[in-house]
């Protein structure tokens, strides 16, 4: 990942991935899914030389 992927994540509206993990590489979502392990595995398969930035997309008002 580059820091740019984090900054892209901050700016982007990812609502369509609500409740899912997204893997971001080169400022775009390359994989999404409910299970982080599967998302990482698939992202690594697609981009073996890159380290994806992972984020859980939230859309619920919550108290932790």
């Amino acid at each position, binding site marked *: 990942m580059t820091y740019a992927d984090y900054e892209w994540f901050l700016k982007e*509206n990812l609502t369509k991935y609500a409740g899912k993990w997204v893997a971001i590489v080169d400022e775009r979502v390359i994989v999404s899914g409910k299970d982080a392990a599967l998302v990482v595995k698939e992202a*690594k398969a697609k981009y073996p030389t890159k*380290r994806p930035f*992972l984020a859980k997309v*939230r*859309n619920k008002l919550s108290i932790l």
Partner: protein
Amino acid sequence: MGLVYKFKKEQLEDGTFVSHPRIPVILHGENVSIEVAALIDSGCDATVIQEDLAKAVGLNLKGSESTLYAFREASIVINSKASMTFMGRKARQNIKVQVPVLIVKSKEGFSEDAGIVLGVEGIFDKFNIHFKKNKNQIVLNSV
């Protein structure tokens, strides 16, 4: 100056927006290291990681179990520890720390929709953390 981040504006189901202090950390495990957006929560006693993420990086899941209480819920968690790197804009600004973590099963935990929550123990004693929402800044200074 320390590490400076911005709030992540996220749209809720009803169309309104909220801002969350989510910062980039590298979570190091036995299998792999993953960069992930972590939520800072001063109301959470410890750092909490979803089980699926813990498995993805290869954290130790064989620790003792305890119960984590939140608002009106209780969850069984596994006591473990993890190395994580707080990422700066430039790699030379990165700060690596080791912290105790609680691993919560994804389907049961109150943090189900957060992925990783950075709580007080092990984090707030390593960083002075300033939330400046009016400036859209979160500033972490290493202690």
